[in-house]
């Protein structure tokens, strides 16, 4: 070890901190040009916001990453939204009255295409340029539970209500306990529990339970589950309200948000999915525990 190493390695936390502060100005970093009229990030952001009509521009929702999308990853999100909108409308028109599933706010419909299996599978050829999310970091240094799934930014149960505008509801089941991480992104709150005995991890993601809560206004939104062959939907009762247990193959959730934009959410991160609405909130619970256990956890949510 040379003298420099020896002297640096011998510093206390405070001294090392001071040393690091002193080199801050030496760490190279880009500096945006802010000359009047320059296209700096602030200006580019403004132009993008304006071009989307000044409404919040919702980009694709978290798990999207083109997992089931058959037309390749290069499809522009806007075009993708249009195609999704058309698919959704055609399917809705075709089966409008045919299927009697009747949870207000949730409509389920079937599509013929076989969805591409999701996160743990290899991506379709068209998306090979965007390497599969975050599976890459070495297993010895995992991030916090859920950090691989683009759930938004990490928050806390106490901070969550100020972000979402609704009170956080959590399972009171002692086996489940408090979530390991809480994430917020694009109007959704997602609680993540790391896998452990009692909360198995069916997809080797390190996550044992995933619960999302988001506003799904009964009058203004609809939710569509685009279900391919190999997926089973079972209407169930969750605390007196109807919900759906979706098991089997990968599914894709398409819904129209409050601003009228089409959003999609394709994945299976943990296991099968239980989805239900209560009041103006929609809940989505993913678990590998099976239907009855999922319902039991769901009914413990307060």
């Amino acid at each position, binding site marked *: *070890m040379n003298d420099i190493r020896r002297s*640096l390695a011998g510093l206390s936390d405070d001294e090392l901190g001071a040393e690091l502060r002193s080199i801050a100005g030496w*760490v*190279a970093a880009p500096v945006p040009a*802010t000359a009047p009229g320059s296209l700096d990030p602030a200006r580019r952001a*403004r132009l993008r916001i304006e071009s989307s009509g000044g409404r919040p521009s919702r980009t694709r929702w978290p798990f999207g990453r083109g997992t089931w999308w058959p037309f390749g990853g290069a499809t522009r999100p806007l075009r993708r939204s249009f195609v999704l909108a058309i698919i959704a409308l055609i399917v809705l028109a075709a089966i409008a009255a045919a299927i009697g599933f009747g949870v207000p706010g949730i409509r389920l419909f079937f599509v013929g295409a076989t969805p591409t299996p999701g996160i743990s599978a290899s991506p379709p050829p068209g998306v090979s340029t965007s390497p599969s999310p*975050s599976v890459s970091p070495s297993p010895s*240094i995992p991030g916090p539970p859920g950090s691989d799934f683009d759930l938004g930014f*990490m928050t806390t149960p106490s901070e969550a209500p100020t972000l979402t505008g609704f009170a956080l509801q959590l399972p009171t089941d002692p086996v489940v306990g408090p979530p390991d991480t809480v994430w917020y992104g694009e109007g959704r709150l997602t609680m993540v529990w790391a896998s452990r005995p009692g909360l198995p991890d069916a997809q080797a993601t390190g996550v044992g339970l995933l619960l999302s809560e988001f506003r799904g206004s009964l009058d203004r939104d609809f939710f569509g589950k685009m279900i391919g062959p190999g997926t089973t939907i079972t209407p169930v009762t969750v605390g007196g309200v109807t919900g759906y247990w979706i098991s089997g193959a990968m599914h894709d959730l398409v819904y129209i948000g409050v601003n009228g934009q089409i959003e999609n959410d394709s994945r299976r991160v943990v296991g099968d999915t239980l989805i239900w609405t209560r009041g103006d909130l929609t809940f989505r619970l993913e678990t590998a525990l099976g239907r009855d256990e999922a319902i039991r956890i769901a009914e413990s949510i307060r």
Partner: protein
Amino acid sequence: MEGRPLEDERRIDAELIERARGGEIVAYEELVRRYQAVAVRTAHLFAPDGDAEDATQEAFVKAYAALARFRPDAPFRPWLLRIVANEARNRRRSATRRTGLALRAVEDRRPDDAAPSPESAVLAGERRSTLVNAINALRDEDREVIAVRFFLDLSEAEAATTLGIPRGTVKSRLSRALGRLRDQIASDGAEP
């Protein structure tokens, strides 16, 4: 922005936020431009191999979408930086090749630096490279907490918001990160 009392900064932010919420996108542009330099720097520190300006732009668009839910009594800067950091992290995860932080060339010295003697300049340069190389060898979590506390000079509270972790965790995580940094420096194998 520097040199104005904090209260003034908060008041200016509050006014711009209110106007931005009212639909004045120009006010939003002005608001985020106030924090643009630190935002780009944050994006670069979190993902040195990504396009920091692009990540910042994307984060600004996302922050606009979330602005209605921003708590007016909270400081805006760390709230924004958290979104920037998150965006940069997401990009980092999809990058195939990792490049670490780099030092500016000596010629690029800040004008207010006094010209040191050649010998001490070389020594100081080696000291800096040793530190930066060791930081680059750390895992992301350690690098992030060191970067926000020392390279961005954020307070503990701001660091907590930016990293999305409790304040107490900042302290413990920083202490562990510094420990690992020392280990890294001490191990000769750290030389790139």
